[in-house]
């Protein structure tokens, strides 16, 4: 790219198979996307390769934003650091025992269920002499000498990082802070529970702290390597990483709290949905992201980020602020099979990216959803998938034959069955995040992205009575684009655990202000300009006697009555009823601070248009082959209305427009599919 006064922002999403890069020219409102294979062994190399491939002049590149699964993979594959954990006497096993639940779905009836290993084996969990009482008093001082002796002997082992979690520390973090000071003399990586999750419930807090510590060295090395290289080549640019809450984290924040990136995978996509929804003024959308092994769905009502604060992940609980995204085990690579009883199954087993669907020609022999789409003509044979491989129809047919014979069907009929069952599963997922939570999906538009989202979206919409499907620009790299739509974000919480009264509300307000101040300071320490800082205040509340809380967004000057009303409204939506007459309990208070960035303006974006020729292909549907026009997305100008059945192809995805549907291009370059 020639040297000019361009300002370029870059968004990168490091996925399991591909690393996507989206480039946005701030001045000309131009987007373009690149794709390189991911390198699981050294993920930073893929990021740099993508940046190099994009060939952005260092003089123009101002911002590099990225989503990463480095910490997630380290955790799931148990490839994190060797760590030690220090805790209160009597509680060495909290991390291992938890609440005695399996914390892995679909394990009921499995006598050979093997509990995922704790991140710190028992021999590296140590008890310290100290007591903080339930009211926050230091009943027994921390024995720092004992701790130091332990640290000295541990420093001689291969332990890289250490974590500290004391009982009742959320009431008074003094001992944890003391311990950190002592341990920092011997270790580069020290994490204390109250700095990671300052909330009541020791298992959740200790788990958060140990996960954080476990991924700290690997994440630190990764971001360091990356930021050094970025600073070296692209001197002008700033570098941020997407967090689980859908906001951006500084390199410093990522090094201290890498835990915050673990659930960030699908977060950027949802952030992009919210941003696009605002821009095209579509206030209710359902995000529908179909990937290779799984699919993510999320409900965005009234432009609001769907929030939750707990995820169960392979035997652990992650209880930090995060987006409420529902994942199901069905995606393009989901394997179709017929079980011993003769029943058709699709997923949750997946061919993944290696060997991948049979049609990838990388050795996969089992039929997948992608193969079914190819056989039906919904995906084109020889179609390039992300410029790196093309689909082999013969291999797809051969794989499908293996189950079609068992079912006594033709490969076409079998493929259609596989497709229909997968669609039924997608529908169930959407139904579960909408209808079962009090939202009618028919009042939402389906925003579909990911490699296989637009391929299935309209079929899902038809089944659920949804009348509008939106396919954003560059759907296959939408998550990378999403990083460009996120603000800088930090949050800080505190457990108060009191019955909510007018009087108590006054002191809570002071505490909120205190938290807000700390957040501002923390941003300033990172060198950020805080003049545009925004605060959101959240209360985790419940009825007295309940065990689970709901998150309620409140104003700083909210009245007691307003808070009660807001809580009961949220409760009613979630549980379909209220318990009028019961008192409210305030468990945690939380402040979320955001600093807005310069976001892309899609409305003004120009997408290069070419005059191409519409091709035709036979597509099999409902027992019949029909000749269907195949459009290239770049050929669709705003004055064109495509009547289904039709197919729109682009580099990263394929959109299928069924019969009785039409497709137009919206102002932000999005495809809008509407039921006629």
């Amino acid at each position: 790219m020639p040297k000019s006064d361009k300002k370029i922002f870059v968004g990168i999403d490091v996925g399991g198979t591909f690393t996507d890069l989206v480039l946005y020219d701030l001045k000309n409102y131009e987007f373009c996307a690149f794709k390189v294979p991911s390198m699981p062994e050294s993920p930073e190399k893929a990021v740099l390769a993508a940046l190099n491939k994009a060939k952005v002049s260092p003089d123009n590149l101002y911002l590099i934003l990225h989503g990463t699964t480095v910490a997630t993979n380290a955790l799931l594959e148990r490839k994190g650091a060797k760590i030690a954990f220090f805790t209160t006497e009597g509680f060495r096993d909290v991390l291992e025992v938890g609440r005695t639940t399996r914390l892995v779905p679909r394990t009921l009836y499995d006598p050979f269920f093997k509990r995922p290993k704790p991140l710190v084996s028992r021999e590296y969990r140590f008890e310290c002499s100290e007591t903080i009482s339930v009211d926050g008093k230091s009943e027994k001082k921390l024995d720092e000498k004992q701790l130091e002796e332990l640290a000295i002997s541990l420093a001689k082992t291969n332990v890289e990082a250490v974590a500290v979690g004391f009982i009742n520390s959320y009431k008074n973090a003094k001992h944890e802070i003391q311990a950190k000071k002592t341990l920092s003399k011997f270790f580069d990586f020290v994490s204390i529970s109250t700095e990671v999750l300052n909330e009541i419930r020791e298992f959740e807090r200790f788990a958060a702290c140990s996960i954080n510590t476990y991924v700290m060295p690997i994440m630190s090395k990764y971001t360091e390597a990356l930021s050094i290289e970025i600073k070296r080549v692209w001197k002008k640019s700033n570098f941020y990483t997407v967090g689980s809450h859908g906001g951006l984290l500084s390199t410093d924040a990522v090094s201290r709290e890498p835990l915050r990136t673990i659930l960030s995978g699908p977060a950027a996509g949802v952030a992009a949905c919210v941003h696009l929804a605002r821009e095209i003024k579509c206030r209710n959308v359902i995000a529908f992201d179909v990937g290779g092994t799984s699919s993510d769905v999320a409900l965005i009502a009234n432009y609001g980020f769907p929030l939750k604060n707990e995820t169960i992940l392979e035997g652990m609980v992650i209880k930090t602020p995060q987006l409420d995204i529902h994942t199901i085990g069905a995606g393009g690579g989901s394997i179709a099979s017929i079980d011993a009883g003769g029943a058709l199954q699709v997923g949750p087993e997946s061919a993944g990216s290696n060997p991948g669907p049979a049609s990838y020609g990388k050795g996969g022999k089992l039929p997948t959803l992608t193969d079914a789409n190819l056989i039906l003509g919904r995906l084109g044979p020889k179609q390039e998938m992300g410029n790196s491989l093309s689909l082999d129809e013969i291999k797809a047919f051969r794989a499908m034959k293996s189950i079609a014979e068992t079912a006594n069907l033709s490969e076409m009929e079998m493929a259609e069955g596989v497709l229909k069952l997968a669609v039924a599963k997608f529908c169930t997922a959407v139904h579960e995040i909408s209808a079962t939570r009090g939202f009618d999906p028919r009042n939402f538009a389906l925003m579909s992205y990911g490699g296989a989202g637009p391929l299935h979206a309209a079929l899902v919409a038809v089944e659920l009575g949804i009348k509008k499907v939106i396919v954003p620009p560059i759907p296959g790299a939408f998550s990378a684009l999403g990083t460009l739509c996120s603000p800088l974000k930090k949050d800080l919480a505190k457990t108060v655990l009191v019955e909510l009264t007018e009087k108590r509300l006054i002191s809570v307000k002071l505490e909120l202000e205190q938290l807000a101040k700390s957040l501002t300071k923390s941003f300033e320490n990172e060198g950020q300009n805080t003049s545009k800082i925004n605060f959101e205040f959240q209360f985790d509340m419940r009825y007295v006697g309940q065990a689970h809380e709901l998150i309620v967004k409140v104003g700083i000057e909210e009245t007691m009555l307003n808070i009660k009303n807001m809580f009961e409204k949220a409760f009613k939506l979630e549980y379909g009823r209220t318990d009028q007459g019961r008192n409210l309990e305030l468990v945690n208070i939380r402040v979320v601070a955001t600093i807005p960035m310069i976001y892309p303006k899609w409305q003004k974006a120009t997408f290069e248009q070419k005059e191409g020729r519409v091709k035709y292909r036979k597509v099999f549907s409902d027992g019949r082959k029909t000749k269907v026009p195949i459009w290239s997305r770049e050929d669709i100008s705003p004055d064109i209305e495509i009547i289904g059945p039709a197919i729109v192809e682009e580099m990263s995805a394929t959109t299928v427009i069924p019969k009785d549907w039409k497709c137009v291009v919206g102002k932000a370059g999005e495809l809008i599919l509407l039921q006629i």
Partner: protein
Amino acid sequence: MKKIDLTTVAIINEALSSIVREMRRAMVRSSYSSIIYEGYDFSCVLLNGEGQLVAESGEDHPFHILPIATAIETAKKIHSNFDKDEMLLHNDPYTGGTHLNDVAVIYPVVINACKTFYIVIRSHWGDIGGMSPGSLNGNVTEITQEGLRLNFLKIPKSGKSEVMRLIFDNVRVTKEAVSDFFSVIGIIRVAEKRLKKLCKKYTLEVVRNSMHRILDMSERRIRNSIDKLPNGIYSHVGYLDGNGKTKHPLAVKAKISIKDDSLNVDFSGSSSQVEAPLNVGPAIAKTSVLTIMKSFLDPKGSITSGTLRAIEVTLPNNSIVNASAPAPCGGFNEVRSACDSAVMGALGKVIPESITGEVRGTSNHTYIGTSDFIFYEYPSGGTGAWHGSDGNVAVRAFNEGENVSIQSTEVIETIFPLKVRSSGIRPDSGGIGRFRGGVGLKREIEVLASGARLSVLSDRNIVPPSGVAGGGSGAPNRFSVIRNGKILEISDFPGKVGNFQLKKFDLVKMESSGGGGWGCPSDRPLKALQSDKIQGYVTDKGAMKYTINMETVEVEKCDTLEFSQGILSTCLANKLKVKENDLIELIAKDGPTIRVWISGLIDKMTKEKVVIASELFYSNEMRIDVLHRY
């Protein structure tokens, strides 16, 4: 019959389970009782028009859903017909219920004047009447003390009737009960709408035929698994401690006959029913058989009436596995666990390499409270080991739902006058073996209030979870109180504690059982044992058990002995320092473990020898261990 294609069946199956999952979520959303919205003590299922179970969520307690499969058939014996505007209420253990607190609402969905589905929601009522709050009580001797029996009562679908008024007038926490009952009806109505929509979309005929196909497919699937087992007859016994008023031990005997792809389990020979809440009605043993078979043979398959077709169960009348009025059934989970033990043990003779050691076999209900507060937990135990892996540290086992069994220390200390002194693993509690059973829990809770009482309803405090294929038993469950450093006698019979008076600063110690081990302990690799010691799962003393060669004895069979009895040669008794009534176990290196209570000693036998009942006999050379001395 129109042939329904494979895909349609799969899609209808997906739709039906989605409807069940939605009901499940709605139950949590709309329930007023914490046992529902936090303890998940309920289940939802769909039956077809013939009353056959066609869909469940995959997340429900097995013992909740399986008994429903026979409900309609039994109901029809009482009501030759019921009106389309009527539904049924049921909780009676003797006609297929679990315990009285679990009340099922059975709601027929009528389409074209034909009962096409039954929607069933079974949920735990906080109280169903009876002699004490909560209705469950370890001291009852007859069922009327446990509350109201509802034996397929006809109720209008609106839920409004004189019968309901009678019921609500006779349960405690009425307000919650009424609200929850009407939310259940609301949830059922939503499911009914979805079912009707489904039938409209696919036609009644297609849906009905698809349901038959679903049943056939799951039947084929389980039969396929059973067919892989060798034909034969295999017997084993599972035990319960009982209580001070019953015989000790109580026994459940299972004789499994495998013939090609069918399975029959005969429970004849199980203990006669008792005047204690340790009985079950006819539905539970079959539930146990299916749970164990499905778990070990086909854990991923679904559960339908089709699955049940491959399994036949024979139950002796008036026994603890098929009790009749007025035997109380509150502790059905304890009896179910004994059934699980018996069936697992019998399977252990067929496929010892694929069976795990046992888990704790009881609910471990523990209450500490005054009139101001009730602290309630039911600590899980370590799970059994299997060929290839040690058992898990205390966790919900494969035959239990995912409910949280212990609370957060910080929450306990905030809301109760209690201080948790420690909460961790119980070293040495895992059964020894080439693969070690998972260790149980040890929790020490200090009481900071005066006037508190402790109640415990637990079992398997004497008879521990057994190992398999040569593995040893886990440590049994144990509950104690420590006052001024001394261990107190808290009950006449272990595990059954009624209102023990606690003093301020007393320490309540809850210890849950470890899981049974798998394989011969001396085969445990030294590295694994060393790691156990370093980790602290096994102490130095505990590790000695792996090296001490257990006595190998000759086992002889005798037709006249009862299966819980064993006769020892005096020389062996002297060597083991055991006397009559003591509990010993005989460990087979490739099969289940046999437990016997010494019923006599014989001087004449000069060899170290044990005589046991012929039916239980497995091998004439077994290792021997002492489990309990009285």
